[in-house]
């Protein structure tokens, strides 16, 4: 055995080298820890106080949550989220998936069509909202245009209709996101093993049956990804409502995100705003955490 003096020691620099990856990741990681997890904790704490205009440390338990759940405004917002979220996800996935399958049929102008379907995703929600607000306004928009054309009874006044305003938000949001879902599916369709399709053709299956029986079922992970992304986007939705309906008429088309902003910045109800933000986070986490967990686990084993 060697004597200890003979052992070549690592230089300080080499030692540092060995820990460089950790040292490099540390600052951004700590930023995330502080600005994401620390702030979540802070908001969580504030939601348990009776803070109004300024944060206070007057602990009052779950009072804010009790108030929140008793507020009609919050219940409308949450109900809207359920309507908006489910229709948005359903239509965006259906339309995106149909467009992807159609585009997958060796369409000559595929590139141009893809660009057209996807451009709304590059535009801000504020611009989308502005555009649709103008198109759907009853006095000068599509409704009056149709009436001028001679269709006197044409009515499309959802944007000013208390019961229908949230559906207008759905229309604009689907217009914006369905192209993204199309891109997601199209890139997945391009990775489907051609041999399977050839084999199915040889077995006598029609193109339609191949899609419904073989290809689409094999895209289950893409459906899941699309679902998760759209679901969390719907919970985050804020700007579109602001620009399109500003939550109105009244507060009939508010979403939780708008509720939170209203409470925190307009009505000096910081505690209530924090409580609603925690509710939003919980909803997102319920969808995202299991998804991330399974994705990252699967990767480690595969």
């Amino acid at each position: 055995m060697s004597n200890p003096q003979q052992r070549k020691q690592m230089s300080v620099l080499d030692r540092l080298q060995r820990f460089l990856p950790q040292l490099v990741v540390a600052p951004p990681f700590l930023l995330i820890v502080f600005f994401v997890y620390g702030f979540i904790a802070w908001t969580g704490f504030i939601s348990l106080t009776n803070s109004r205009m300024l944060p206070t440390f007057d602990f009052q338990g779950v009072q804010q949550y009790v108030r929140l759940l008793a507020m009609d405004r919050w219940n409308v917002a949450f109900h809207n989220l359920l309507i908006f979220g489910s229709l948005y996800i359903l239509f965006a996935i259906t339309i995106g998936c149909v467009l992807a399958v159609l585009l997958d049929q060796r369409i000559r102008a595929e590139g141009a069509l893809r660009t057209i379907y996807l451009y709304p995703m590059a535009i801000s929600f504020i611009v989308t909202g502005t555009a649709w607000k103008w198109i759907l306004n009853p006095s000068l928009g599509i409704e009056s245009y149709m009436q001028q054309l001679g269709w006197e009874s044409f009515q499309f006044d959802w944007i000013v209709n208390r019961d229908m305003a949230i559906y207008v938000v759905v229309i604009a949001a689907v217009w914006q996101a369905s192209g993204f879902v199309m891109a997601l599916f199209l890139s997945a369709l391009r990775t489907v093993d051609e041999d399977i399709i050839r084999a199915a053709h040889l077995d006598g299956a029609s193109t339609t049956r191949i899609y419904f029986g073989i290809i689409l079922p094999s895209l289950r992970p893409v459906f899941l990804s699309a679902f998760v992304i759209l679901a969390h986007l719907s919970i985050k939705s804020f700007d579109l409502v602001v620009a399109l309906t500003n939550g109105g008429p009244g507060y009939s088309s508010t979403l939780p995100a708008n509720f939170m902003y209203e409470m925190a910045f307009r009505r000096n109800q910081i505690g209530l705003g924090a409580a609603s933000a925690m509710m939003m986070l919980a909803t997102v986490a319920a969808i995202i955490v299991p998804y991330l967990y399974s994705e990252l686990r699967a990767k480690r084993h595969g």
Partner: protein
Amino acid sequence: MANPKTLPGANGKRHLFGRLFIWTLLLAAAVLYLGPIYVVLSTSLKDLAEIRAGALLDLPHELNFTAWREAWSSACIGVRCEGLRPYFLNSVIMSVPSVAISTLIGALSGYALSLFRFRGANIIFALMLFGCFIPFQIVILPMAQTLGYLGIANSITGLIVVHTIYGISFTTLFFRNYYVSVPQELVRAATMDGAGFFRIFWHIMLPLSVPIIVVSVIWQFTQVWNEFLFGASFTSGGAQPVTVALNNLINSTTSVKQYNVDMAAALIAAAPTLVVYIIAGRFFVRGLTAGAVKG
């Protein structure tokens, strides 16, 4: 996709009807997607009298760029009547540094997390990844306070800091998933050649990373430029980014509604990201799907 055309017996009448059906659907969809931008564009080129006459979908009688000029330099937003220009510049000043810094940080941390799988790297990555999905309502209250403490409330600097921090999650995801597919042997070979952590990054990884850098820059730029919540929450008056200014312009109820100016302003606000999308759409799509198809 297997080409049904190449299969014998696939060229009959049924096939022709099928193609016709497909094309009808695709073109109808294209019209629906293009409709709004057409309406916005044509409205922005009409004068108010023409707009008030209805005829939403008609082409403008003549091309009239007054509304564009007004939207850019003289429309009143709040009490200032300087058009969108100062806010547009705010957005430029805000996005350039935050995009650059968050991309650089993401590249380094993605590199360290993927090619040097130290103990806990996966957990750190998962924790950072969650930051992509949080609703930002959860952080705006403490962030408003923190910006106040730091003395950068209601400033573009404040927005740069905010956008940089919350961009790190995305950029780290992009680079980490990109570098995961780089063979580990490359790092080993360079280590044997005597290169250290930063020299491997600089000499070998960065030159390989051009596509993902483009993806990250485009994604971050689109996000930061289009962002509204932070801008509305942390700035007011002259420090506002263009999205907030646009919203204020459109929702201002003071004077006669100038729809053509509103639409021109909307197009001005959308122009940079649209241009980026048209020039580099391929990378834009990759950025969108990178967040979804991890692996």
